[in-house]
């Protein structure tokens, strides 16, 4: 069968990524020492990711007809989530250059990064459960190898085994759920699934898919792998897990629940509400008692996954209300805002943590004491990122949290108010541990070990902080209706 030129153009971002994979693997062979290898690999990878972003942005005027690619849909949802994943990965590859410094083998890691990104693009482009599941696995499988990349490190291996076993179990549960949904409806396209009525077999399938997805999104009670993996894995890998891959997993969840099971909101909505409430409480509560910064980041990312999932609750509760489509648009808009803000602030925080961990060899909170006095740039950006994570206006975290709160409260149901109440309590608890870390950073230094020099990473942190500060401007240019009207 001849390849249709439209299909070729539509998949050009994925093809560009695979070309980049081949190039970085060659770069590993031809470079002489570790330093030049890093330079080559980082420039090739970031150029490839930028090219993929451009190609994704250009597919706007190219929407293939139903007959050419019936399983895919290249709309604004695809563009937003692909660009989010790809640009977060550029941040990750810059931080990885400071993590894998010993051997000249960064290319293999970067190739896995790009393959995982291709999976993210497939997730965002899917209009059918088959490519959605394939994209999900294509995103997840390279991650297991990326975590275990330091073969001699006992911690990284243990983290990778935990991540692999739980990831494999969750994908097994998801595929069993998909098989039940297929049996109940005989259909797997999103449009057909949305039209189908609720029935017991389909509902069981939806629950299994919800539980499997919660593993990947690190929501309570499926969260216990997170803290161990974040401590054991290389810090730049944590950056990838928390910043890029989790956002792609959210794209998977939105495709699943907001688009395909849109008429079964009364089935998954209440369970999702319970999961969100537990995530916010447990994530914030456990983060408050941690002594190691990576563990603190792990639990705070559980809480933030809960915050983003509030949009799913708001979406489910909006069903049947008079201004349903407006409320749903607001929910998805708030989710996208919080995803972007979370990338900016968590990216800055983890990049700063990477510099500290590289200087001190571990991530105890005592090592962060006096960072501000030692290096003004790292200290200022990290403190601003922490304030943004709390949600202090006018930083990015405030704007996105505000929209999430409005989205859930406007639906005006009991579950929505309970979620909003827990959201407020969770944010209040989070002030304690974020300010504790900020105080440690601003304190007098207790030792005189200097920080490792990392000028490009610092420049990136400054850029992210500037974006965090001016994030609220975005609200004036894009309204919920803009996003939503072209989406469905």
């Amino acid at each position, binding site marked *: 069968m001849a390849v249709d030129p439209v299909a070729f153009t539509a998949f050009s971002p994925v093809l560009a990524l695979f070309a980049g994979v081949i190039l970085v693997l060659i770069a590993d062979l031809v470079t002489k020492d570790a330093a030049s290898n890093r330079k080559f690999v980082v420039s090739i990878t970031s150029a490839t990711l930028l090219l993929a972003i451009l190609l994704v942005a250009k597919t706007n005027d190219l929407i293939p007809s139903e007959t050419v690619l019936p399983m895919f849909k290249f709309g604004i949802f695809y563009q937003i989530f692909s660009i989010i994943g790809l640009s977060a990965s550029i941040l990750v590859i810059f931080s990885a250059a400071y993590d894998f410094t010993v051997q000249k083998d960064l290319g293999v890691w970067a190739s896995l990064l790009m393959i995982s990104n291709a999976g993210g693009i497939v997730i965002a482009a899917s209009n059918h459960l088959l490519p959605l599941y394939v994209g999900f696995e294509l995103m997840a499988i390279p991650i297991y190898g990326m975590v275990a990349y330091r073969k001699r490190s006992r911690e990284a*291996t243990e983290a990778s085994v935990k991540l692999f076993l739980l990831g494999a179990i969750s*994908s097994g549960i998801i595929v069993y759920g998909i098989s039940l949904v297929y049996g109940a409806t*005989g259909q797997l396209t999103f449009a057909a699934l949305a039209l189908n009525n609720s029935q017991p077999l389909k509902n069981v399938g939806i629950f299994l898919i919800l539980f499997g997805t919660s593993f990947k999104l690190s929501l309570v009670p499926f969260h216990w792998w997170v803290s161990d993996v974040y401590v054991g894995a290389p810090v730049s890998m944590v950056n990838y897990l928390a910043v890029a891959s989790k956002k792609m997993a959210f794209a998977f969840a939105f495709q699943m629940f907001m688009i395909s099971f849109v008429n079964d909101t009364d089935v998954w909505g209440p369970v999702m509400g319970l999961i969100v409430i537990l995530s916010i409480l447990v994530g914030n509560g456990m983060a408050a008692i941690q002594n190691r910064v990576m563990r603190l980041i792990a639990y705070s990312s559980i809480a933030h996954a809960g915050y983003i999932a509030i949009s799913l609750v708001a979406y489910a509760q909006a069903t049947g209300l008079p201004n349903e489509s407006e409320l749903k648009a607001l929910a998805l808009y708030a989710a996208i805002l919080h995803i972007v803000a979370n990338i900016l602030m968590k990216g800055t925080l983890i990049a700063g943590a990477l510099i500290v961990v590289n200087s001190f060899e571990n991530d105890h909170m005592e090592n962060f004491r006096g960072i501000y006095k030692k290096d003004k740039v790292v200290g200022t950006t990290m403190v601003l990122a922490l304030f943004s994570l709390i949600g202090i206006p006018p930083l990015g975290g405030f704007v996105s949290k505000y929209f999430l709160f409005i989205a859930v409260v406007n639906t005006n149901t009991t579950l929505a108010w309970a979620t909003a109440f827990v959201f407020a309590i969770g944010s209040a608890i989070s002030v304690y541990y974020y300010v504790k870390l900020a105080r440690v950073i601003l304190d007098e230094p207790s030792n005189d070990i200097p920080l490792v020099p990392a000028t490009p990473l610092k420049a990136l942190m400054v850029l992210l902080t500037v974006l965090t500060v001016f994030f609220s401007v975005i609200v004036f240019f894009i309204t919920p209706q803009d996003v939503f009207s072209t989406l469905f």
Partner: protein
Amino acid sequence: MELEWFVYLSLILFSIGILGVLTQKTAIRILFSVELILNSANINFVAFNSYLQSTTSGTVIDQYMGWVFAMVVIALAAAEAAVGLAIFISLYRNFREIVVANIYELAESEEDE
């Protein structure tokens, strides 16, 4: 054959897989249990497809979607097992065992506070 026998078979396999995941302590055995879960889904797909084939309309791909999905799941399970076994070899080299119950260096109750 009735459809429900196949669904019961896959439900039993799925339950055995979940039970194995929860009770087994060796990494390889947990991987076996995951494969059981995936294969139970495959049985479901193929059985449902044979049952639904007379009712579904559309292209050939639509009519055989369950079989296509089963093939894809088999391929993905192979990829997952390949990565997983490589990780288990790395685990064995570092710890000299693959009993995951004995590997808890990252556990939260650490003394280095």
